[in-house]
């Protein structure tokens, strides 16, 4: 089923999405990858707030290439999500409802998605040039010193994805691969 998904996404809305749903995402999403996650959660332990209100938000595991003159953003495909597995249970607990990335997730992440209501959406890895055409604005809102790993606030239109793991723990990687295994 193809669904137009507008951000922010409530926990209730996240629970409605099912593995296999084809989505087109519109609205604000935030990029964060290894270094930004590490800093966000280390800061939180020191009592420093996250650089944006994470409630009902979407994190895109990505670090764009630099924009040329006149471009909104460089190439911006997903990075491999398992490296954020250490951090995602906490961000979900804090209110994150949607993650965009590629690749498998740890059982603890999936447990948190089930418990709180969150969804994991796959974007096509290695299609960064194509995905960049869906980004209408881009602003670094925190951790500028991290370069590509800084937190970018993106406004996207018709950003294509597919629900890989839903809030019931259904996992498209498992169900689809079985169909083609010989």
């Amino acid at each position, binding site marked *: 089923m193809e669904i137009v998904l507008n951000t922010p996404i409530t926990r209730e809305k996240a629970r409605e999405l099912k593995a296999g749903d084809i989505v087109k995402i519109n609205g604000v999403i935030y990029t964060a990858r290894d270094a930004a996650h590490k800093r966000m959660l280390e800061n939180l332990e020191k009592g420093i707030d996250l650089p944006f209100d994470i409630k009902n938000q979407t994190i895109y595991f990505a670090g764009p290439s630099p924009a040329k003159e006149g471009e909104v953003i460089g190439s911006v495909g997903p990075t491999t999500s398992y490296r954020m597995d250490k951090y995602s249970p906490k961000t979900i607990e804090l209110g994150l409802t949607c993650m965009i990335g590629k690749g*498998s997730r740890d059982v603890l992440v999936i447990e948190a998605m089930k418990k709180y209501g969150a969804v994991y959406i796959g974007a096509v890895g290695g299609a*960064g040039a194509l995905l960049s055409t869906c980004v209408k604005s881009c602003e670094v809102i925190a951790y500028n010193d991290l370069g590509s790993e800084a937190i970018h606030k993106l406004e996207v239109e018709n950003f294509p994805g597919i629900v890989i793991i839903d809030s019931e723990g259904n996992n498209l*990687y498992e169900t689809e*691969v079985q169909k083609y295994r010989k």
Partner: protein
Amino acid sequence: MREVNVALISEAIKEMCIEANCCLNEDIYSAIENAEKNEQSEIGKNILSQLIENAKLAKCKNKPICQDTGMAVVFIEVGQDVHLVGGSLTEAINEGVRRGYVDGYLRKSVVKDPLIRENTKDNTPAIIHYDIVEGDKIHIEVAPKGFGSENMSKVYMLKPADGVEGVKNAIIDCIKSAGPNPCPPMVVGVGIGGNFEMCAKLAKKALLRKVGSKSEKAHIAEIEEEIFKRANNLGIGPQGLGGNTTILGVNIESFATHIAGLPLAVNISCHVTRHSERYI
């Protein structure tokens, strides 16, 4: 003795870094096109057609195919009758990488220290493999490599008793455990023999060969053929979402080894396996 100014090498490497990152090699492009025609999964077929569209767009806009423009890997063969002038060869290579990544709007993905992790902001240093060969030419190959796939690579120190079956099973095991993480369809580079570090270098070098090319050694070509079939029967498919296109190709290089060992390295690469080559 032929004199070559290292500035020529810097300039070549700069151009090769940009070219490799923005123009998908013809062999890979054709392999994706063929796979798209033969893919059984609808989701998979759709993903492959997006990859084709992405490659076209990247080439047309001179934009990176993938935002992970990699760590620059440089293989350089210097003829023993070449006299390099104008400065240090290593510095010239890194200067080429620096200019390619800065001037070409490529992502700077290198940290100076693996534990302190401060970005060098110009993607240097490169990983450089030097070789001294006969003649008066310089052969340069630049292969920027992203880490989504690099992280899925493995070295196996097998026993001679494991033999060819052990080798095949380990390669399949590596592809299977990589699953959806390295952006399948993958390109698989394999090194068999040598020692611990040599097999890894062979595996990397294997990725420089065109996909679809066969090893000149008949017994190795047979393994390539079998792995190609077995890997594509795993069901992983494009992006790991199911299908019969799990790998676009597997290239194997081999070398002499010790009586006690059977080293094996599997270097997993993605559908954006980059490679640019020049002679100076």
